[in-house]
């Protein structure tokens, strides 16, 4: 088992945003996380990546406890430490470094693996120069994999929407993850782009040997490529199973279409 979200619950004041989420991902799987707006999907991502600390429960990555910190001095893992252990993510509302170049956006992801010290970097010692060169080469490779290598000099903020989505994925890939969390990668795309994205996700899963957990509203995308699906509604896990099982699950239909539809 690669990831085990072990009975996660998080409360904000009186509101329980996610209740008792128990999710297990096996190595190499592509799993979907769906649910209506406000179901707590992104909150679940934020708990897995350490942005939020769950009120109860633990997050285990290959049996190692990676649960986030409640406060800067509390025990637990910071998001950057979790990234270093091999969990990368994209964001629902694209969060690129908009004033930096496409290449810099990707190279930054290699910074966590940098061995050279600050002085070595400022003085451009041979060790740093070698590392910088390697980082560049790797970044170009990742950009090639997502088809953005020609735009490497461009400012990230100037890219088209679909390109920005792909750059965000490229940046996440560059951290060299075992587990990739995609937060609505197809949002704002037309059906054809969605189709291309599906193929792209399949391709990177193979090429980068990834396990992927994906939040997505586009049912065609989810049902098309996910092997298993978890369904959240109002913070509760109302169903899990294969796409076929989910499509026929009455609670899921209820959650999506409202109670009246099934009546």
């Amino acid at each position: 088992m690669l990831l085990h979200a072990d009975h996660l619950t998080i409360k904000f004041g009186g509101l329980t945003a996610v209740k008792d989420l128990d999710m297990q991902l096996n190595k190499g799987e592509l799993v979907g996380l769906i649910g209506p707006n406000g179901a707590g999907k992104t909150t679940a991502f934020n708990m897995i990546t350490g942005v939020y600390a769950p009120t109860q429960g633990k997050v285990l990555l290959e049996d190692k406890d990676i649960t986030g910190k409640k406060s800067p001095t509390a025990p637990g893992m910071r998001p950057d430490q979790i990234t270093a252990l091999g969990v990368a993510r994209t964001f629902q509302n694209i969060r690129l470094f908009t004033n930096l170049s496409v290449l810099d956006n990707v190279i930054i992801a290699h910074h966590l693996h940098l061995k050279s010290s600050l002085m070595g970097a400022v003085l451009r010692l041979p060790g740093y120069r070698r590392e910088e060169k390697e980082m560049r080469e790797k970044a170009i490779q990742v950009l090639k994999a997502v088809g953005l290598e020609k735009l490497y000099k461009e400012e990230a903020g100037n890219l088209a929407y679909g390109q920005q989505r792909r750059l965000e994925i490229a940046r996440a890939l560059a951290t060299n993850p075992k587990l990739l969390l995609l937060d609505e990668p197809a949002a704002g795309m037309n059906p054809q782009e969605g189709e291309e994205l599906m193929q792209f996700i399949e391709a990177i899963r193979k090429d980068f040997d990834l396990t992927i957990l994906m939040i997505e509203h586009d049912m065609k995308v989810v049902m098309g490529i996910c092997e298993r699906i978890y369904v959240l509604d109002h913070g509760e896990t109302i169903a899990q199973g294969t796409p076929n099982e989910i499509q026929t699950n009455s609670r899921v239909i209820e959650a999506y279409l409202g109670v009246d539809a099934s009546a």
Partner: protein
Amino acid sequence: MKKETKILAIIVTIGTIAFLFFANQFFDGYKIRIMNLAAINIILALGLNIINGFAGQFSLGHAGFMAIGAYTGALLTLSPSAKQMNFFIDPIISPLANFQMGFLPAIIIAALVTAVFAFMIGVPVLRLKGDYLAIASLGFSEIIRVVLTNLQSLTNGSLGLKAIPSYINLFWSWGFAFLAIIFTFFLINSSYGRAFKAIREDEVAAEAMGINLFKHKIMAFVIGSSMAGVGGALFASLLTAIDPNIFKFALTFQILLMVVLGGMGSISGTIVSATIVTIMMEWLRIVESPMTIGSLTIPGISGMRMVIFSVLLMAVILFYPKGFMGTREITWDFIQEKINRLRKKGKNETLQKDEV
């Protein structure tokens, strides 16, 4: 860096060095003083720009760190007899009393001492963001000043220190300014500098990319502040007399003005604006001193300079929020682009004239 830009940088450097030799020979003391001040301001503004512009942590504590550097530098370079003269109320604490060293080691120690204080202040303060960070760093800067005023036997309190050796000359000041420029350039264009910029752009995303926010913020803060320490030590040597009141928020304001004017996140912009602001600051003394036109004498208006500079700061932030350069640098391409635009403009104007 592009080849043309490199050549441009080398030409500018050689030109500046030649000018320094020329100035050293032919300029009077007043002009040399302004040039020293310009170099010091470049160091200070670059330091603040690393923190505020590149790492995006809006700190207002620069004057406090300058004060630490200035006092350290002054206390280490003052001769034992001068110290005795200064500290006539309370004698100076013993190990410092008979201690004197050269300018260079004093500056280096000033930088290190400032770095230690910056670290101790940065650890709590950099947990804060935005305007809270701004006000807390300003608060620490004021605390430093209050402490300096009260530690009679270490700093001579509000009387300040006088007869600080004036080691500074154009080669010291500009030598350190060059060092600061080169250091900042290599820092910002290294992997660490990229991490700073990523934090400025989006903290959440930077953290998700595996960047340890706290470590890098502290790094930027300590580096930028110790540059303030170096600037402060040079400043003390230029003034030859310092007291805690010099290091009020108004001083931070001046440096902030240079950074905002030049562009938060632009090295070359900062260099240019620090130089221009320094010269303007002196030149505008005209409005503060009495003027005689014929038989008419206009009294000088003291405080007018700062009015002009506050208006300038507000005008920039209201109408030109990115400053002259934004996050860009003056490169060969940048200059060409400007020239092309000017040419086009010229052409359009002639075309319009032709149409008429």
